[in-house]
């Protein structure tokens, strides 16, 4: 083991981190209170509400994230308009009752999958191919899947018969793992320079495991709730941390035109919130199965 070397300068990272968590906690607690107050008694309705909310947040995250990232990519390919446009449509469908909804959600499902294909094609043709350089900096491999997920959650909310909570729970678990993997890759790129960067690679995978188990075990469903709440909290804390990250980069928010693109991505962490909300909605149904 090499000796630790003295650091030439320090920042109060722990204090900043705890402050961020505390702020997220306040926001999260208030939101959770409202959410609980309006919780439907019927587990099926609760699931529908959770999935719809999850789909809405994921759509919003995809709208902003793909909008910003494709703007960085100068919308060189007209296909780059598809993701943000569809995310906007999906977001709309989660808010209003419309008979076009199933088509929009299905389209989101398909386009998300195609996006993964596009992005891998893009990586593959670059110098270096699927090396770490391109995984770090080229089109993100997993990101388009969030659009598929929004579509899937939207569809599931509309067809509770086909998409029973026990079937959706493993999907949500997988989604959490995927999102944690993406956060892990990008935080690895950031050398985990702040210890709080480990949060999204530890808590969500744990929540994912227990959520998956919930589809067969009502006991697991009870354990899942606090873990999913924690994951949801990360989805709120993330943008707070990331906006601090922009602030502490060169030029801070004054340099927003660069840092909104180069700094830590503001709209990425809410994906955790979206998935966690969907999964939380499934829990009442899963708890009762026993």
């Amino acid at each position, binding site marked *: 083991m090499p000796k630790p070397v003295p650091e030439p300068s320090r920042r109060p990272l722990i204090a900043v981190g705890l402050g961020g968590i505390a702020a997220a906690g306040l926001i999260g607690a208030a939101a959770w209170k409202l959410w609980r107050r309006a919780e439907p008694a019927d587990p099926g309705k609760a699931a529908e509400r959770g999935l719809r909310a999850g789909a809405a947040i994921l759509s919003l995250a995809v709208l902003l994230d793909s909008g910003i990232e494709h703007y960085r990519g100068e919308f060189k390919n007209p296909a780059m308009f598809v993701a943000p446009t569809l995310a906007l449509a999906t977001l709309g469908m989660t808010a209003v009752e419309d008979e076009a909804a199933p088509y929009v959600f299905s389209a989101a499902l398909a386009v998300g999958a195609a996006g993964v294909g596009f992005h891998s094609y893009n990586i593959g043709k670059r110098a270096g191919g699927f090396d770490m350089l391109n995984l770090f*900096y080229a089109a993100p491999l997993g990101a388009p899947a969030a659009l598929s997920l929004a579509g899937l959650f939207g569809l599931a909310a509309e067809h509770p018969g086909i998409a029973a909570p026990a079937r959706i729970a493993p999907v949500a678990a997988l989604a959490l793992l995927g999102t944690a993997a993406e956060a892990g890759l990008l935080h690895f790129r950031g050398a985990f320079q702040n210890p709080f960067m480990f949060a999204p690679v530890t808590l969500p995978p744990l929540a994912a495991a227990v959520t998956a188990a919930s589809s067969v075990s009502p006991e697991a469903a009870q354990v899942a709730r606090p873990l999913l709440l924690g994951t949801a909290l990360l989805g709120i804390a993330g943008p707070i941390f990331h906006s601090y990250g922009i602030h502490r980069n*060169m030029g801070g928010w004054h*340099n927003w035109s660069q840092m909104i693109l180069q700094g830590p991505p503001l709209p990425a962490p809410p994906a955790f919130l979206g998935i966690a909300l969907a999964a939380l909605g499934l829990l009442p149904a899963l708890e009762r199965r026993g």
Partner: protein
Amino acid sequence: MFDAIDQPRAQDGRAPDVFRPGAWVQMRCYDDSEQVDFAIVGTGAGGGTLAAKLAEAGFSVVAFDAGPFWRPLEDFASDEAAQGDLYWTDERISGGADPIQLGSNNSGRGVGGSTVHYTMIALRWRPDWFKSRSKLGYGRDWPLSFEELEPYYEEAEESLKISGPVRYPWGKRRKRYPYREHPVNASGLVLARGCERIGIDWSPLPLATLSAPRGMAHPCVYRGFCKYGCSTNAKQSVLVTFVPRAIAAGAEIRDLAMVGRIEMGKDGRATGVSYNRRGKWRQQKARHVVVAGYAIETPRLLLNSACPEFPDGLANDNGLVGTHLMTHSGPGVWGVLDEEIRSYKAPPCMAGTEHWNYSDEGKDFHGGYAFMSQGPLPTDWAQTLAARGLWGAALRQEMTRYNHTAGLVLVGETEPQAHNRVELADEKDQYGLRIPRVTFSYSENDRRLIEHGRKSMHQVLAAGGAHQLWDTHDTSHLMGGCRMGDDPKDSVVDADGRTWAIPNLWVCDGSLFPNSGGVNPSLTIQALACRIGDRIAEMAKRGELDR
């Protein structure tokens, strides 16, 4: 920026806080008459690094730099012309069959030395080069093995939070770099494309500029002015790494303090240094003196310190001080691409290949070379075109293709030759000190290496999509002049940087190098400095320091 040149900033118990505009840090200050453990001449890759190591080991240290103590966040303009004060521009005479361009090309002046404006490439020596004579049949062996220096490479990389690729294709299997690689800019991608098409490895280069935040230092914003001072502190120069550490550990940094002479006692030991600060000559007493002025100023100071006991200069009984000076040959190949390159963006050298450092197949010469992608800024580029012979309307029109130009420049090993050397000229500088005369000529082997490198670069650049290729010639880096060795007869210092002739006189910089390798030297200098620091502390513990 200008007050830093006129007035010392590090004095009266404080030094500039490089991380906070306008702020200061406390600094321990020593009296001239107070005998400190170490007086270090120079605060660059060698001296600045060693100052931190020694202060952290508990020694009292005063480190001198002839130049200013910059505040990068406040002083550094985004401008080539305005940043000329980063270089050593005192007069030097350059001769030989292939005279080296000095000045901005390979020198620094100011706390942090040339690491304040270097391109931050942080590569290790090929392990075999430490034993190039016995293993590869050319050059000279170091009195050290790669294995002995390896932990110190790691320490230096950790200290600079080197941002490097997860998998570096060459060299001994290594621990992962502390920070991740940066995205590669267009000029780097041209190299990458070319290498892949001709079937050789390339890699994003490990760089001493942050790809993620570190303490108060910002990550790189890819502004591209690296060679003119980093205004963000992303560059992990000695000025923002080892120097703050040194000061925190109790060392004094004395800026605008030009050391002109090492003072000797009758017992044949150094007693301190004479230095000029604010126009006055003063003397600092020290138990040990370390010279870390780089490959020209270090031999110059030893030669300028001649005294009755050492009439030919200090540690020069065998006449080797100043000899075996090496540079890296730097032929360049440039071309025009259909795509926009805009190589003013991001650090100038982001991708490179060490293929010909590690593969000796088919070479008609000894030694190795690497080459890297380039990112010249406008005046630098205009001067490159001027050196190609262009002027007038032709030059001005050619300059409009700036954004479509990419190029590669070699870091080519040169052989240590006795007649390539630093001597004293009769002319004197503003301090009344004799100025250095530098003589350099390539060997036949050097020329074959250059030719081979040129062909390789042509191949890669053409395969990378460039057309209308043309050549330049330049050099980079300096090494040697006070080489280390196992034998007092044919070296100036031992493996610890201690001069054979004077037990309390040390050298710690690039002049120690017995050979020049085919990569940028700064990381190896810093690894050596880390090792020398540890060795001195060990020797002190065992009571061997004051022999």
